[in-house]
């Protein structure tokens, strides 16, 4: 019930401000813009050639990264918006609806809404002659595990937001940058310095993006990640995701406790 009503609220906040056409445009312009940026980079380096493994790697990685980026982008605002903009956080907090479940619901809806721009990017990939080799079951499982990983990140971010001030930029967007750099999203992780490649293997997102490539392109071209079988990647992703979820949940609970202790659940910090 709590999840359902918070999902409904997220949909209202995200979608009720405009017409469906504008909403779809709004949801797709940003991801398409991000993909065009990468395509342009590829284009200038290859001297006008748009094809090859590297292109497919970065295009698919970037398309699926939108699920992470867009969800975290929005989740990054929830606490600050509720607390300082709509000033409803204290009311939601004292209602029988668990604030934790409320955040779960809102991030779940955002994740679902982000599937729309992802579909558009997948469709546009046809024009780039991306050799799709979709393994449906694996893809569905990947989506589910991705959702766990993304909401864990959202929870961690929300915990931090409970204790920090609202700044001008989107903290969610900045936060998702960690995954963009360290998870082999748009380049293979062996390009990173040695320590960073090792760190990447401790992140759930690295395995998730590897599963994405395996389920959409039917293969893994990252030289480090291709050393694992699909089963190994899935098992590692599940274990690390569970760990990540527990860490995020505990962090959120601690932040929740500290926010109440400090009396900052209804603070306004804008400057």
């Amino acid at each position, binding site marked *: 019930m709590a999840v359902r009503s918070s999902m409904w609220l997220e949909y209202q906040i995200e979608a009720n*401000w*405009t017409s469906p056409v504008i909403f779809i*445009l*709004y949801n797709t*312009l*940003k*991801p*398409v*813009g*991000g993909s*065009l*940026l*990468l395509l*342009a*980079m*590829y*284009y*200038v*380096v*290859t001297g006008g050639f748009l094809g090859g493994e*590297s292109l497919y790697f*970065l295009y698919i990685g970037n398309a699926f990264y939108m699920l992470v980026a867009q969800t975290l*982008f929005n989740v990054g605002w929830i606490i600050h918006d509720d607390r*300082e*903009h*709509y000033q409803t956080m204290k009311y939601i907090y004292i209602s029988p609806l668990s604030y934790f479940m409320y955040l779960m619901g809102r991030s779940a809806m955002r994740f679902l809404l982000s599937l729309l721009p992802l579909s558009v990017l997948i469709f546009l990939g046809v024009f780039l002659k991306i050799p799709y080799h979709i393994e449906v079951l694996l893809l569905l499982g990947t989506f589910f595990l991705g959702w766990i990983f993304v909401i864990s990140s959202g929870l961690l971010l929300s915990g931090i937001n409970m204790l*920090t*001030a609202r*700044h*001008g*930029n*989107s*903290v969610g*967007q*900045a*936060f*998702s*940058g*960690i995954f*963009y*750099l*360290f998870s082999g*999203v*748009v*380049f*293979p992780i062996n*390009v*990173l310095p040695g320590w960073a490649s090792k760190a990447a293997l401790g992140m759930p997102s690295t395995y998730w993006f590897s599963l994405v490539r395996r389920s959409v392109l039917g293969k893994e071209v990252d030289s480090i990640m291709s050393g694992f079988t699909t089963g190994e990647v899935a098992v590692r992703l599940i274990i690390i995701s569970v760990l990540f979820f527990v860490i995020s949940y505990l962090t959120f609970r601690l932040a929740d406790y500290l926010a109440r202790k400090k009396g900052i659940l209804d603070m*306004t*910090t*804008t*400057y």
Partner: protein
Amino acid sequence: MNVMLNLRALKGRAYPRMIGAVREPSWMFWETFLPILSMAAYVYVYRSLDAPKEFEGFVILGGVMTTYWMNVLWGMASQLYWEKETANLQLYLAAPMSKMSILAGMALGGMFSTSVRCISIIVMGVIIFKVDFVVTNAGLLLGIFGVTLVALYGMGMVFASLFLMWGREAWHLNMIMEEPIYFLSGYSFPVKALGSLSLFATVIPFTLGLDAMRQLTFPSMATQWGLVSPHLELVILLVMSIILLYLARVSLDRMERMGRSKGTLTMRWQ
């Protein structure tokens, strides 16, 4: 126009931004450290593609200029909407100073954190990625940088007036404009690659500014990837600055009047 009044108003609005940055140092993490990570990813994309070293420098310079663009969008243009939501806007509007001085105060106040981020990006570029900037004409480079900022902030003020009229739409528009504008302005690649589209892209002031600055810091790439000569870009930017500042003034007045007529200036949670 009462110059002293507007200078004081500018100082008054810049103050919370500077003090806020000192009192809430978490912005260092959110607005400096993390965004640099995303930017570093673009450098690694070029590395993975064995691109010339200069392209990595292009990303670094793009990162520097987009920092200001972000300050314009998030710290200034959309800020009037936020001020409305927190009941400050009506006090700003009922006060005698020019609204441009308030916006300039926000921008200048945000300059501290923006500049910290820019310096961090340059330091990262030089130390971690070993980017070699070869400055050929420091005076021209600084001039272009300064005029680009004036034009950028002028454009931000025009946006601010639009955002004043709109409610949540403005907030969303701010979000969706980020990536398409990064693309059109050539944030991480030479804008000339866009062909005839690059002409259209020059409407955004930092497209020309960025292109000129890249030509002046990576001269080996200027012939192949430079759009037009940096001198001409400076002249165009100067003209743009004047037009944008004028437009900002007119549009702020017009939007304020329209808001007063429709009653949206003090209507919260639109």
